[in-house]
């Protein structure tokens, strides 16, 4: 499937000038299929591709097919800018999807603003401009969101801890992760926790041991990490290797389900917005069947995030009708409710002011040794986004 995506990009590049979109909805994606962060973003793009292959086979949206043009920006800002320009000018894309590192945001926002096209962030961190009061052309479906996530994690620790909380923090040395952990560190005393350590870990790091020693020596009995998955899991495993007996909570990125089953540790909690596949919902079965039929490259457990992106595009295009234009689509997206069919705790609702979601839903999971399975620690919890 990844090969297919890369080949599609190459074929589309060779078709420069060919008119797309005369009888179809054109959706452009500039994402990291390879390069930094590709492990997180490529599964998102693969899921979107699978979803629309299925939709097209069933007759498309409003009787029109969806042409998906996915280009590999390798998380390179100049490539992302060139991709976006090409998708807008040559392929006549109605909407652009970004699924790559935040370094690609600014050039893509500039290009889409110039063309008056909506830009949807899917699987990549939501920029501040999608939160109230939102930029009219920027939208986000990504499950994680700054500040709301930390509020959720700290509230969970407060509820779960049976002792005084000495909290340690771990972040990756990138602005978005650092900023969030700084925020959590500020909030912790308000919850009655004592912050004792904060490790900002450079990417990539060969040995997480020294960072773990500092957290352990500081006496932390809980650790909170909000960072790319590698930093979260490697910090936890280094802590355990060095005999740390505390508990840790981290954001449940796309790898979370496989990793909980691999690590099998009752003291490792993940919280996130997507329901894990172990819940066996009908939507999970649908994704599983689609992935199997399409010969997915990535594990099915990593496809939920991309599926939500595709559901949002589907809902927006369906409501826009035919013929579609960028203006009509943007107007529709400013008042849209996306039914996630249980993949999230509730619908993703966008309003004129809020292009993140009006309510952020979370669920906490962990491994349960007694049951030899992943268990849900709580029902869905929601926080209003305003």
């Amino acid at each position, binding site marked *: 499937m*990844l*090969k297919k995506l*890369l080949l599609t990009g190459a074929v589309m590049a060779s078709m420069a000038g060919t008119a797309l979109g005369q009888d179809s909805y054109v959706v452009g994606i500039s994402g990291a*299929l*390879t*390069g*930094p962060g*590709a*492990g997180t973003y*490529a*599964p998102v793009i693969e899921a979107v591709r699978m979803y629309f292959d299925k939709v097209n086979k069933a007759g498309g949206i409003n009787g029109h097919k969806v042409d998906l043009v996915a280009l590999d920006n390798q998380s390179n800002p100049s490539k992302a800018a060139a991709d976006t320009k090409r998708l807008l000018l040559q392929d006549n894309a109605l909407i652009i999807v970004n699924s790559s590192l935040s370094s690609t945001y600014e050039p893509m926002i500039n290009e889409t603003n110039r063309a008056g096209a909506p830009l949807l962030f899917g699987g990549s961190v939501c920029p501040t401009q999608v939160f109230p009061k939102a930029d009219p052309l920027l939208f986000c479906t990504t499950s994680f969101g700054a500040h709301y996530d930390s509020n959720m994690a700290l509230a969970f620790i407060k509820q779960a801890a049976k002792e005084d909380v000495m909290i340690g923090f771990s972040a990756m*040395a990138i602005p978005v992760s650092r900023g969030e952990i700084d925020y959590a560190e500020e909030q912790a005393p308000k919850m009655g926790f004592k912050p004792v350590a904060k*490790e*900002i*870990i*450079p*990417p*990539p*790091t*060969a*040995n*997480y*041991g*020294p*960072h773990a*020693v*500092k957290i352990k020596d500081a006496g932390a009995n809980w650790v909170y990490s909000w960072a790319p*998955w*590698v930093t979260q899991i*490697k910090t936890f*495993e280094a802590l*355990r*290797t*060095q*005999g740390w007996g505390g508990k840790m909570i981290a954001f449940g990125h796309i*790898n979370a389900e496989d990793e909980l089953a*691999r690590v099998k540790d009752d003291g490792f909690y993940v919280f996130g917005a997507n329901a894990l596949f172990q819940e066996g919902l009908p939507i999970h079965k649908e994704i599983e069947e689609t992935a199997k039929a399409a010969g997915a*490259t*990535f*594990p099915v457990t*990593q496809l939920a995030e991309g599926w939500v992106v595709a559901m949002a595009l589907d809902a927006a295009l369906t409501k826009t009708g035919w013929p579609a234009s960028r203006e009509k689509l943007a107007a529709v997206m400013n008042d849209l409710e996306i039914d996630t069919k249980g993949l999230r705790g509730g619908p993703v609702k966008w309003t004129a002011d809020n292009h993140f979601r009006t309510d952020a839903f979370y669920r906490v999971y962990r491994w349960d040794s007694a049951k030899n399975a992943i268990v849900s620690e709580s029902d869905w919890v929601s926080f209003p986004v305003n």
Partner: protein
Amino acid sequence: MQLLANYLTLAALYALIACGYVLVYRVSRVLTLAHGEVMMVGAYLLLTMGTLFHLPPLPAFIAALLMSLVVGLAIYWMVMRRMAGETVFAAVLVTIALGILLRGAMALVWTPRLQYPAEAIAMENPSVALGGSVAVSQASLLIIASAVLVYGGLFLFFRHTTWGVRMRAVGENPRLAAQRGIAPHGPLALAWGIAALTGGLAGMLLSIDTGIDEAMAIIGLKTFPVVLVGGLDSLSGAIIGALVVAGAEILAIYYVDPLVADVAPFLVLLAILMVRPWGLFGTREELDRV
């Protein structure tokens, strides 16, 4: 003591990666910038031994190491051999292109997601208590043991074997070596092969500890200061360079700021370059030729 254990693990890992840079440079005078990718290929080969052939740990390691050796020989035979007679700068550029090619190929074949060879070959990586409250992973102990064995083996190889002496001869003066009947291609290919094997071993052991993702190649590149600090053409220098750089990194993490750890190797490098531009154990004329 825990800090010391972590320090030795990091130094051993850096030393294991660094010896590939030194071997290639010492014999061929080429600074390879594809070593991080070659190291990653080794880790993926180990993964494949588990996922495709379901081999248990020891046979999987042996098979992956032999395949890494073949990868190194192939790189020389198919790519670097054609650079004979070209400028060193051109050869370095070719290694950069080779790195990009390998990264793309690995993303296509193995996908860029985080993967765990330890799971694939059913290898446990328990925490090993070393007394008191000191503990390290089993993979960390293997990294330290491997570094000792690899360097010990290489010192013996270069001093006491015909092929080792041939490699030294080709590295010191290829024209004179050729006049004495030593065809350069064999020793050069072997240097690339052994570099891929040792780099691959480092990649395999690191992947047992922390898995493989696309960042592994950057760890290979981060080892570059180790080689420059120690001296590009000195195996002993690589050991000292690894100890110095790992020390600077660990001390920065623990006593200054974890963020400083990222630049600490380069600060050490800068300091060494100002005092001894050819590195602690490097040869002065070698640097002039670069």
